[in-house]
């Protein structure tokens, strides 16, 4: 499937809600941005993911929790094309089959992922990091002659304020604290204007204050972007899940799904995860 033809295939109809975040190239007419159907991934016989099914709506902030080895990172790898599912299908919108696309195509189609370890360009300034990430023609000649328009500069500034790094824009990213690097990484994701944002343990290694600030940041993004957060930190998940759906993974499959208080009350969840 070629991505180039997709914008034409996307429905012109606006969805019932979240129309302002509706993807350009992604057909989300049924309100879902991501469907995983019976995905299985096995490594040498070990089933990292076992018939996992999951769907995420447009504009939703979905939290995924689960003990170590539950298959959270493998699931992210499947969505971003890093790992091929052994069986099952992964749909991005109505029309894009992620299992047949390369990592670059998936990134181009609008799935942005933040890795556990921040990998910003340490020698570049914060501003340059955001500028490099900005959604635009990224071929050689347009890049050589690129001049920052005031509109683009304004966009970078808005993101700088959102990730609370205004005033730091001229500093080399390598000098930022761990938490600030994570925010910069989230900022770089936002600059790419992805349809779906995957955050892999965004608060790992953060101080309490930084964790609280990250929760605030994600709450600001709620409803403006479709976001999937994989996290261990229960307090943080409670902060950002609010009334939204939380999915508990266990041994490669969905164990429970529901509001945070429902999930926390679930016997099976307490047994495998929360009650320890």
């Amino acid at each position: 499937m070629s991505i180039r033809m997709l914008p034409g295939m996307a429905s012109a109809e606006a969805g019932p809600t979240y129309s302002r975040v509706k993807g350009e190239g992604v057909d989300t007419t049924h309100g879902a941005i991501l469907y995983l159907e019976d995905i299985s991934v096995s490594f040498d016989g070990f089933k990292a993911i076992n018939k996992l099914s999951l769907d995420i709506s447009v504009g939703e902030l979905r939290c995924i929790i689960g003990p170590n080895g539950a298959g959270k990172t493998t699931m992210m790898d499947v969505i971003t094309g890093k790992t091929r599912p052994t069986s099952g299908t992964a749909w991005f919108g109505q029309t894009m089959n992620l299992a047949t696309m390369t990592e670059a195509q998936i990134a181009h189609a609008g799935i942005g992922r933040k890795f556990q370890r921040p990998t910003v360009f340490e020698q570049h300034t914060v501003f340059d990091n955001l500028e490099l990430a900005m959604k635009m023609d990224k071929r050689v000649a347009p890049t050589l002659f690129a001049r920052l328009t005031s509109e683009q500069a304004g966009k970078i500034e808005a993101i700088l304020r959102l990730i609370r790094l205004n005033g730091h824009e001229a500093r080399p990213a390598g000098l930022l604290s761990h938490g600030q690097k994570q925010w910069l990484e989230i900022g770089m994701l936002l600059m790419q204007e992805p349809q779906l944002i995957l955050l892999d343990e965004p608060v790992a290694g953060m101080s309490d204050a930084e964790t609280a600030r990250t929760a605030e940041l994600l709450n600001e993004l709620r409803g403006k972007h479709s976001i999937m957060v994989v996290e261990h930190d229960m307090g943080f998940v409670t902060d950002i899940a609010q009334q939204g759906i939380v999915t508990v993974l266990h041994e490669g499959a969905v164990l429970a799904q529901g509001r945070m208080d429902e999930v926390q009350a679930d016997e099976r969840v307490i047994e495998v995860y929360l009650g320890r």
Partner: protein
Amino acid sequence: MTTSYPIKQGLFTRPVWLAIAACTLLAALLPILNLAFAEGHALHVSAYTVALVGKFMCYALAALALDLVWGYTGILSLGHGVFFALGAYAHGMYLMRAIGDQGQYHSSLPDFMVFLDWKTYPWYWAFTEHFWYCMALVVLVPGVLAFVFGYFAFRSRIKGVYFSIITQAMTYAFMLLFFRNDTGFGGNNGFTDFKTILGHSITAPATRAVLFLLTLAFLLAALIGARAIVRSKLGRVLQGVRDSEARLMFLGYNPLWFKLFVWTLSAVLCGIAGALYVPQVGIINPSEMSPANSIEMVVWVAVGGRGTLLGPIVGAFTVNGLKSWFTAALPELWLFALGLLFIVVTLFLQQGMLGVLSKFKRKPVVAEEGA
């Protein structure tokens, strides 16, 4: 709306511009003093000095080209000598044709072809009697070789030391090829005994002055052009290739074309440096493609300070100046001195000479680089 984003200044800071202007004027003065004052006059500059500085400028241009790929993009080439030599050979073909029947054997063919008992020029010497055609070759031959070589190497994601090794192998292979008499480029003697260029005697002081000033102009233009490139967004992408290529791919850039662009550009600049070198030095032979020569280019860049553009120019002048002095005064010690210099730079001056300079000043000499 007030802008808090960093304001991009000019290409260089004012003191650096002044330093560049002063050096350019000083250099431009050399051939003029050579022409204007007779030998023995206090202000006379010897033809030897003019030729030497001219040669150094060619080296500096090659070092500048190497810095674009090594210092900014993190691609260490140990085979840039081949691009330099190919540019030199391309220009040398014209210079050989320009000898006409003035050679030792008074044949219309170059002496080495007479010696091989060839009756006509091989097909690939066609049109080389035209100056413009050879100038096109100066750009195209290193450019196309670099593009094809780079395409396959970068597409296969050959990186780091593996890439360095195959560039070394490439220049070695070309050296062996050019050493063969049957290749048709003069074997181990290469091209020499040039007489004229565009009808002017190649040894005349005025011709030499023009060549010198042309080299200076090319070096200056290359410096400003390269600076404009590394200061552009493309320059920041290249530095992203150097620091984290995988991250760049996730941002949607295809590093292949960026690497290929800078790699080919660097090879072309190196070819131009070679083309300017050959009429001033008067000889080109396959030893220019020896692996050691390419490694020496890397030493110039490292000594001057990589990732600074100005550093490699300073480095090329310093190392070659030392070399000229050593090989005259203490010839057997030169290789030891070169080795020692490289060790000292790697251990103590990782930013090179320019790095030391910027340490003394509060503000770095080359603003914004940081590398």
